[in-house]
């Protein structure tokens, strides 16, 4: 039963972490940025109107009253009203969540599927040219800002070669989205049987996903390489080779399985930061997801929207690391013994 117990304990820990994150955001946003009433008031407004607007934005009460009200609303699942969209933040966030998740999932799957084999290739060819090549590429992938990689990819594939569409969001301008089912455009278009729109959505997704994939690939390949190098030097691998197993069998069946543990941790870390990282990525590609929402919320001092985004991001972070620990227990039998 230790696995279920651990999951329960960790799920319980989400509460204080989330409370802490909410509290920091709440006060940081209000204390740092001051009163945003002016942003939402026409300049010629009378003092009376100004006070009314302040009241409606919920900014007239003392800070502690606002905080208590926000928390009690939050407990009932109410994220509050966004100043900019005028809608409930919870609805805003779930509207935009699929866009971010779709991009994040496709990008990360690409990064992992490419990164792990590259790391293995580098490790088994240690100190030879494939190793140097992979190390060079991954160093670049980690040392370059993601927004720069995105811009260069746009320049190459859209501006110069014209192979892929420009950074205008999830579908080309003027194309209507498919009937809303899951919010994932690739799935919705496939379910609607609309091959043409599926192709269009995939082409829009290609560049941002490639950008995210390249920045995921780099650390994944590096960690895989380091961990494979260590595993290749261990006694059980020497034994396996001495017993006459083929090299490929040894690499992939014995070595890689043991080397993957640190990679799992890393992937958990990368996944936990997908929402935070979306802020920059989505602003380059005009991607209508959570990241753009957060950026807009910061620019316009939209408190409830910002708090909602931070809650989402920190929940994802905590859940990603919980998933890592559960995976560890499933992969590594040694972790299961108490």
């Amino acid at each position, binding site marked *: 039963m230790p696995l279920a117990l651990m999951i329960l304990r960790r799920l319980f820990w989400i509460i204080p972490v989330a409370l802490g994150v909410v509290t*920091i955001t709440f006060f940081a946003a209000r204390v740092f940025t001051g009163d945003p009433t002016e942003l939402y008031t026409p300049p010629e407004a009378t003092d009376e109107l100004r006070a009314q607007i302040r009241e409606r934005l919920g900014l007239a009460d003392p800070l502690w009253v606002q905080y208590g009200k926000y928390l009690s609303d939050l407990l009932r699942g109410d994220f509050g009203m966004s100043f900019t969209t005028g809608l409930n933040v919870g609805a805003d966030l779930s509207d935009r969540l699929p866009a971010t998740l779709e991009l994040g999932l496709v990008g990360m799957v690409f990064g992992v599927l490419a990164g792990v084999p590259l790391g293995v290739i580098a490790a088994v060819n240690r100190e030879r040219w494939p190793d140097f090549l992979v190390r060079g590429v991954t*160093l670049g992938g980690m040392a370059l800002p993601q927004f720069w990689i995105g*811009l260069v990819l746009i320049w190459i594939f859209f501006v110069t070669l014209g192979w892929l569409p420009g950074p205008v969001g999830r579908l080309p301008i003027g194309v209507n989205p498919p009937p809303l089912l899951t919010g994932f455009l690739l799935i919705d278009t496939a379910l609607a049987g609309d091959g043409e729109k599926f192709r269009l959505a995939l082409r829009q997704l290609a560049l941002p996903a490639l950008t995210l994939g390249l920045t995921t690939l780099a650390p994944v390949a590096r960690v895989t390489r380091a961990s494979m190098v260590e595993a290749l030097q261990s006694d059980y691998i020497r034994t396996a080779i001495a017993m006459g197993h083929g090299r490929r069998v040894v690499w992939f069946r014995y070595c890689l399985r043991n080397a993957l543990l640190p990679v799992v941790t890393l992937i958990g870390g990368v996944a936990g930061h997908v929402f935070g990282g979306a802020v920059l990525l989505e602003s380059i590609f005009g991607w209508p997801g959570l990241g753009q929402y957060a950026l807009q919320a910061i620019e316009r001092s939209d408190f409830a929207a910002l708090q909602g985004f931070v809650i989402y991001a920190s929940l994802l972070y905590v859940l990603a690391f919980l998933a890592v620990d559960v995976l560890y227990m499933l992969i590594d039998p040694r972790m299961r013994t108490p």
Partner: protein
Amino acid sequence: MSAPHILESVAGHDATADTPTAPPSPAVQVAVPTRRRAPLSWSMRIGLAVLVFYCAVALLSLVWTPFDPLSPGVGEGYMPPSREFLLGTDRLGSDILSRIMAGARYDLGITLVAVTIALVVGTILGTIAGYYGGTVDIVISRCVEVFQAFPGLLFAMLVVKAVGPGVLNIILVMSFIGIPDYLRLSRAEIRSRRNWPYAEAARMVGNRSWQVAFRHLLPNSAGPLLAFTSINAAFVALVTASLGFLGLGLDPNTPEWGSMIARGQDGVMTGEWWLSFFPGLAILGMTGAFYLLGDALSDLTDPRRRR
């Protein structure tokens, strides 16, 4: 500490430590006193050379740049790279090479100062938490957990937007973001070593607890901490550039590399690639050098990776 406790840890059995790290095996203990200097690795040499070069460029830019980096119109707008303007000019006709040189002051300077502050503050707090344990440790560790769940770039954006642009503000925000990482690392390091025989010995000859923690335990953790510092410097440089890219860090006319890339963003769409391309290469060189240096340092300090 009580006598049985010492016996326990001398025998290599430590019931209190978080992680089951055994005291060093005899092989490692023998290897320490022989002062055999390993040749500097290539990654260390390249990393150091590039960083020295960047420092030199930053200093040089104080007295000389090909053109005034701040004045527009030294050439025409959007001139491609040529003999006169090696890296071209931007929309306003400023020389990009001059601006990149001047940008080294901002990006490198902010990174170095912010990382130093985070290293010092985080390590002091982490050492205290790791050595003394108890309530202090619990409080500090929980705070760290909360801050780590917070998206770092978003926090930086929020604070910078509030306190306004400025080099000092960015430095403070960036060092604040870094503190939890250093805290966690130094705490783990100190905790895994605080009951080793040499720490017990230091206590037995009458050192105060802070002396044991900071004079005896901390220097032995310097290797991993420095290796992490170098890698963290690369991260700080990237976030600084990201803030500049979002137009939050400094005055938009500042020749910071991230904001230069943002300024050239429109040019990329119309084919004027050099505006954004070269500042990115400048970032690549600096962060790449930090990564190489960090790799070399962890190879040096982690005996398992030295093989």
